[in-house]
């Protein structure tokens, strides 16, 4: 058991602005689940890309099965037995599972042999999959199974998984862990890249913690708790988040009644009979696995999509379902869509110009169609100061900011408009723990001032942490809401997976 399959020695890699890996050194034992834990930007992805032959290290070497690893492309990596599953699936949605599996093969094998091999793998690891189903009809968990089978077809000795649970429901996570344990029993080593501490404790045997491109520590899980891991990962303690149920007022200021939308398009999820209510000062969380109608709901709530079949949207006793985003903003509603680059902000434009994208109620950004540069500059300046946005100045392009800083800017822009209602999608997606904590604190602070907030997120922990009430969206249908102080996680997990 103590044999090292990977011995990483002094790997360094620099990019023009940052030293992404700085003398990374650690060992991975054969047939274990080894975690690489770190915040976004800690250098995990850079290291994995070097291991998989996507980029070349500046110095250092990797000893793989007692020989130095010399590969220059992913196909060579696969040949020597290193398989990789990326966070974002690379499957052809319109093809069937079988076709997708066949397409992933590098070598020439007969169709029959391959078929047998696929059947065997599915049996061996109990990866229940319908080979004739088109991939688009699968849930994220099933898509991940397809990815796993595709990699296993190449008999990997090491399987690298990048944030594998980010799109899975709690039940699917459980199933994944069962599969991973079975893989380890069958002589596969798993390199598990994550920033989720609980998962490291649950599934991994040992962990390498990275911060700022350096390895902080490599150890077996042993007596580590998520708290000790967090401190090592961040290099500091995080402020505790506490929400306040007493701040929620009795008056309802936003209501959706029996909203339905049919898109007649396999790439969109129809919304069925959605109803929700938000009280003044309340945070309502909408949980669910990706692709269950969240983005469609977000577009309807923001007014980017005005196509509603039936139903009402009522804000402060006023029907608003026919208003476009700017008209809704004029009623003091703010939005933060999921995608930072190209949706809530334009990467090619400066921060000042991006401030002009969201002209809130009573702003002084324009007068008779002319842009008032002074007000815009001042406002951008205050967003940057109040929300700790790290950037060169207000004229920096949005694309030059890190994910966390850009998200702080976007959320700051919307919060500073002092909205009565804020609708926000995936507020802390893909950003570091510091920014994540800051944003969650900001949302709670805003709700205490009387703003109603709807948070759509896949991160269940986040929603339970910050929201007062929680509803679950599954296949375009929204569940009733639960109080988060007395919530049954099992039940939520069931609803996320389509159970009753």
């Amino acid at each position, binding site marked *: 058991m103590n044999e090292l399959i990977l011995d990483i020695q002094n790997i360094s890699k620099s990019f023009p602005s940052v030293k992404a890996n700085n003398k990374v050194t650690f060992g991975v034992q054969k047939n274990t689940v080894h975690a690489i834990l770190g915040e976004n930007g800690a250098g995990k992805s850079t290291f994995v890309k070097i291991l998989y032959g996507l*980029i070349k290290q500046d110095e250092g070497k990797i000893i793989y099965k007692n020989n130095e690893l010399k590969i220059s*492309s992913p196909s060579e990596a696969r040949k020597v037995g290193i398989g990789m599953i990326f966070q974002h699936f690379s499957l052809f949605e319109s093809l069937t599972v079988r076709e997708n599996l066949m397409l992933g093969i590098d070598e020439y094998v007969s169709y029959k042999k391959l078929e047998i091999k696929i059947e065997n793998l599915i049996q061996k690891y109990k990866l229940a999959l319908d080979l004739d189903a088109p991939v688009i009809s699968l849930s994220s968990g099933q898509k991940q199974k397809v990815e796993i089978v595709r990699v296993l077809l190449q008999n990997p000795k090491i399987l690298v998984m990048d944030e594998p649970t980010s799109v899975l429901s709690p039940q699917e996570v459980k199933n994944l862990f069962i599969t991973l344990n079975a893989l380890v029993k069958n002589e596969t080593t798993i390199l598990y890249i994550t920033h989720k501490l609980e998962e490291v404790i649950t599934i991994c045997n040992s962990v390498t913690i990275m911060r700022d491109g350096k390895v902080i520590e490599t150890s077996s899980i042993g007596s580590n708790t998520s708290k000790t891991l967090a401190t090592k990962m961040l290099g500091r303690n995080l402020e505790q988040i506490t929400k306040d149920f007493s701040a929620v007022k009795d008056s309802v200021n936003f209501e959706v009644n029996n909203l339905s939308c049919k898109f007649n398009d396999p790439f969109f999820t129809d919304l069925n009979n959605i109803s929700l209510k938000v009280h003044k000062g309340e945070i309502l969380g909408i949980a669910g696995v990706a692709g269950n109608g969240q983005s469609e709901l977000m577009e309807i709530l923001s*007014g980017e999509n005005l196509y509603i079949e039936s139903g009402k949207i009522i804000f402060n006793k006023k029907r608003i379902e026919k208003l476009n985003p700017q008209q*809704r903003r004029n009623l003091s509603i703010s939005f933060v869509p999921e995608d930072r680059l190209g949706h809530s*902000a*334009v990467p090619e*434009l400066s921060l000042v110009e991006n401030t002009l*994208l969201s002209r809130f109620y009573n702003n002084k950004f324009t007068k008779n169609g*002319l*842009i008032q540069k002074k007000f815009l500059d001042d406002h951008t300046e205050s967003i940057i100061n109040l929300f700790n946005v790290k950037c060169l100045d207000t004229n920096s392009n949005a694309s030059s900011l890190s994910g966390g800083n850009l998200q702080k800017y976007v959320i700051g822009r919307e919060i500073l408009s002092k909205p009565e209602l804020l609708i926000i999608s995936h507020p802390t997606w893909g950003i570091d723990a510091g920014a994540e904590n800051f944003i969650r604190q900001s949302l709670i602070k805003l709700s205490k001032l009387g703003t109603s907030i709807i948070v759509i997120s896949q991160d269940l922990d986040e929603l339970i942490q910050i929201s007062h009430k929680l509803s679950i969206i599954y296949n375009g249908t929204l569940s009733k809401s639960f109080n988060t102080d007395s919530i049954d996680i099992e039940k939520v997990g069931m609803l996320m997976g389509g159970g009753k």
Partner: protein
Amino acid sequence: MNLLSPSIVPRTQISSYVNFLVPLIAIILTLLTGSLIFSLLGFNPIHSLYTFFISPISSLYGFSELLVKATPLALIAIGLSYCFKNNIYNIGAEGQLIMGAIFGGGVAIYFYNVEGFWLLPLMLLAGVIGGSLWALIPALLKTKFNTNEILTSLMLVYVATFILDYLVVGPWKDPSGFSYPKSRPFNESARMPELFDGLRVHFGLIITLFLVFISWFIFSKTIFGFQLKVSGLSIKAARFAGFNQNKLIISAFIICGGFAGLAGLGEVSGPIGLLYRDISPNYGFTAIIVAFLGRLHPVGIIFSSLIIALTYLGAEDAQVFLQIPSAVGFIFQGLVLFYLLGAELLVNYKIQFGKIS
């Protein structure tokens, strides 16, 4: 084996002087290729380039001719930049130019025996309306039926050409014109005033400079210009901001058509003075090159319109003095566009041999 397969990867850092560099590289490469073509044809490349690019503007008259040609090019190009900034590919400026000439010229022909200071302004207005209406057709097709504007606007060019053809051989034929396919000459008050005695450069130049300035103001200082820019960069962000896409598409087309129509009217009431078949040597198409060579920036467009206008003059001189077919002018225009697109790619991306990183 990987070593020999090139791949195109984006550059991480792009310098800010790129805006000047790209057109400059394109022009230098065009000159080099041009001299190669001249020497292959058996001409002294230095002498040919001199004949092509220097001698046409070495006299005051030549320089005035340069401005005569640059005026419609700059005017149409600045109009096109309203569309291109918004990622609307209006290729039909030539048709919009012809329609402007027909509407404005029609006024002049209707009032052929009436003089008055009001005639020219009325013609200008009619020219703008003609071009705008013609541009409105692809705009409405796009907003109502999601039709590809590249196809519709291009096809309408040929329709406009045939309408002009019909008019000058049919109802608007000059009664005393010996059956030539042309209209009556416009009377004095229907002509653009010349700026200097004996030179053909006309009042259209002043209008163009004014509109270039106005456009600079709109692009950089108004919310409308900002909306065009954002919609061009990211449709999703424009929807997030609540900008009305259809309104922007229609406005961009109407402005562009109006500018092109004005350019057409400027030609027929300026240097030409009547309507006939070939009122435009493809100004509407060439202006597309002018717009991109000027990087859709008003100041850039002024410079690029002068450079492209020079290829028209150079081609005429090359034909007269070197007996080179004047189509060489189009070769130069094509080369500029070709190198412009190439340089743009190489500035934003680099070619790497071997591994992708």
